[in-house]
């Protein structure tokens, strides 16, 4: 069952999620996460890059050149990352695991509120 797998660290999940829409650089990833969690999760700089490093070593994300539709010069120094196929798979599995848990809880009658801190 999907719930048998060991869970991913939250930082990894957030980053992988952020890259679903396409490649991004560190600062952009941070903003996406912040927006999505409505400010609840703020990733600090070094922690973010540490996590990126780990994901990169696992080959779940990879570095790419900046997309052609961004300004030259201004962003050429930023490194962009994008999901690898393996990374996409891992994310899918993780989301499935979470989903299984949520379904299990719902079946038992636990109502999930939107504002849980």
């Amino acid at each position, binding site marked *: 069952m999907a719930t048998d797998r*060991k869970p*991913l660290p939250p930082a990894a999940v957030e980053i992988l999620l952020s890259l679903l829409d*396409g490649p991004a*650089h560190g600062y952009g990833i941070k903003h996406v996460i912040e927006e999505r969690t409505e400010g609840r999760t703020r990733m600090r700089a070094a922690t973010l*890059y*540490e996590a990126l490093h780990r994901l990169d070593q696992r080959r779940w994300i990879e570095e790419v050149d900046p997309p052609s539709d961004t*300004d030259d010069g*201004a962003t050429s*120094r*930023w490194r962009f990352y994008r999901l690898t196929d393996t990374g996409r798979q891992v994310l899918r599995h993780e989301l499935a695991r979470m989903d299984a848990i949520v379904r299990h809880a719902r079946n038992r009658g636990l109502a999930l509120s939107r504002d849980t801190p």
Partner: protein
Amino acid sequence: MSRVPSKRSTEGLQPKPLIAILLQLLPTRFRHRYGHQLVLHLREERREKRFQGRLGGLRFWPAAILDLVSVAARLRHQHRIIDPAVSRPQPPRSHPMDSFTRDLRHAYRSLCRRPGWTLAAAATLAIGIGAASAIFGLVQGVLLAPLPYPESDRLVSMQAFLPDLGRTRGSVSYPVFEAIRDIEDATTGLGGYSVRSSTVDLGSGAERMTGAVASSAVFRALGVSPTTGRLLQTDDDVAEAAPTVVLSHGLWQERFGGDPHVVGRLIEIGEQSTEVVGVMPQGFVFPDPAIRFWRSMAGMPRQPTSHYLSMVGRLKPQEDEEAAHARLGGIRLEVPTGAPGRSGTIGLASQPFLESLVGEIRPQLMLFVLAVAGVLAIGCVNVVNLVLGRAAAREHEMSLRAALGADRARLIRLVLTETVLLGLLGGVLGLVVMVAVERGLLALASDQLPRGGNPGIHLWVFAFAFALSVTVGAVVGLLPALRASRPRAGSHLGGEGRGILGGTRRHRLRTLMAVSQIALATMLLSSASLLTISLARLSAVETGLDTHQVLTFRPALGNAYDSTEKGRAFFRATEERLRALPGTRDVAFTATAPFGGGHIGERLVVAGTPEPATPEDARVVDVQVVSDGFFELLGLRAMVGRTLQTRDEVGPSRVAVVNATLARTHFGEASAALGRTIDVGQDHRKRSLEIVGVVPDIRPYSLVRPMAPMVFEPLGEGSEEWPFASLLVRTESGTAALAAAIPDMVRAIDPAVPVTGLASLGARLDRQLALPRLRMRVLTVFAGSALLLALIGVYSVMSSLAAERTREIGVRLALGARRSQILRWLGRSGVVITAAGLLFGTFGARASARFLESYLFQLQTFDLRIVGTTALLLALAALIAVYLPARRASRLDPVDTLRTE
């Protein structure tokens, strides 16, 4: 969906130095790969709205730095690649570094959650840490920092020692200096110098400036080279040479604009044209920063009657320091004393030069250290109280952690991390306090402190502040940490307070601490008030002299005045001219000017009593030889008998007037001294004097030394003291105008006689008071802060006491107790705390009064009245601190208190 940062963000990509340093913490490969990105990222983040400006910066940087440090720590301690599939944290096997960073983060967040509390605690610590660091800076700068000369520990200062009286002379005359210099034992050439304030004209008008006169040997001994020109040389020492001067770097920059061609220019010093021959390098100071130039010895008085030189030399390279000092101490030599044709025996007293500068002030600085330690201690106790109070609220958390398997060490570490962080925060805030205290001290006292207080940024001080912050944090956290980690299964506080002080163990501790705070504050306050009253007594008319508008000066007669008649004639001429000046009310003579200058001590034996068996048993009195107008001029009236009159001055003196201390010491009371005879002096100077009057104690020499018995002899026609005489002039037309007229007047009588020691008595007195005033002010400030902190401590203990008894208050109120009864009940413990604290504090003040002994004037070190009044005032203040929380608690609505069950 990538958010593009602005173009500006890539300009000038030099990370701030701090960030660059912190980046070095990261492992090399990581840094190469991501360092760049990190800097960009941080840069962007800093630009965010919530981190804008100074306040935003304050929010931004600690977190950013903490983040960098903890990630670096994590990265460096991972020897294997962490599998991201395994979730963190893993409790039993987590690396210590992991938990350290976690603790750090936790502590930081915990402090941030209660900003008000954190700020209050940190501010309390800041006061103590800041003040302590400032005092340390003072001690380090003045006592510990080496002097700015090469091998400065080889420099020695030399003084003349009077074997008969067991005292050293403050300064020597030129012939004595020469005699000592010529010994050439142990030192490589002794230099003589004298600090004086002169009238200087640099081309833009006359002004007063502090400078020094120095022989060339001084510069040779110090071993510092000039930055321009040359030093003073042996040719400049010759009496007939043209005067030359070396400027300080500061003077050169300020007044000559750093002009490289300043050498050779002529300036006027003391109305003499003096050539500038060199400039000293920046940072050169001798003997203290106030000195702006060093003038040669040419033209300086060489009479044996003019004592003004201090001596400094450097030990020969092969000399052992202790052996040298011992050897020098054993030397005796014959030197001219100043009376025509006479000579006397002196010895030598040598000590390291630094010691001669700072030896006297050391006890004073130690007093400050003790006082500031007291303030720090009180502040720490306050913070311990605060932490304990907060710890109560976190009992839950602690018990939970313990249940989850955190070992005791871990819990202790948790608490300690938080308090050390708090301590560091206090240290940072304390920097402000430190700068303020340092500035204040220097403003008040840089002319009182040797080496001018040696101001400037010393790295030692910052290191000390840091170490102190960490230590304070650890100490403050120790007790709460131990308590928090004690295994407590389930049950929390054991019941409400029983008994007067509150039954719970925790509360007993807190009340004990409040007691100790009050005790410490009492001690500090008593010291401060003792010093204050002492100062008040010093500056009041307790001096016994009417010093308004009195000027004193001493014409230094030269060898030409080799007979008493010539000396007396000179002074009579001076007196005539002085009386001729408009505004002169009175003129008198004395062989020793009041308030400064050397004094003559001689042996005293009451006629009819046996001679003392050994020299140590002999009584010594201060002898003043004065003209008849002396007492009138200063407004002294005889208590019994009469003062000296003109007729006493004819023939060899047979009568004398004594002061009240002498009368009391030797005869029991003033009236008993009248008519008695005393034998004063030794050998050929021995004489018998009949006491014809007793005057009140005055303080001619030093305000702070204990009152000595004094004999006043008439300055007779035939007296040998004439060449040494000083004049006192009372004027109604302003001492400044008179002071300006006197040098010309003396020069008109004899151009070869210089005027020395020209000053108003009032000014001399003020100078004497400056140091006691400094002491008093510093102690008062410390005592005031100590009081404030102690009162806060008492207030907080009382508040928490009352808070803990809320339920019981409710019960009592519901059972019909009146509010006044509740108030009394709550206040009881506060009263006991205050009383106990005062009691211990008073005992402590008595014990510690020893330190103040030398500083207290005319006071018992433990004057019960003063200490008692202080204690009373403190009690009043403390009782307010007790009353307020009690009153608030007694006003509670019983329904509320019972409901919050």
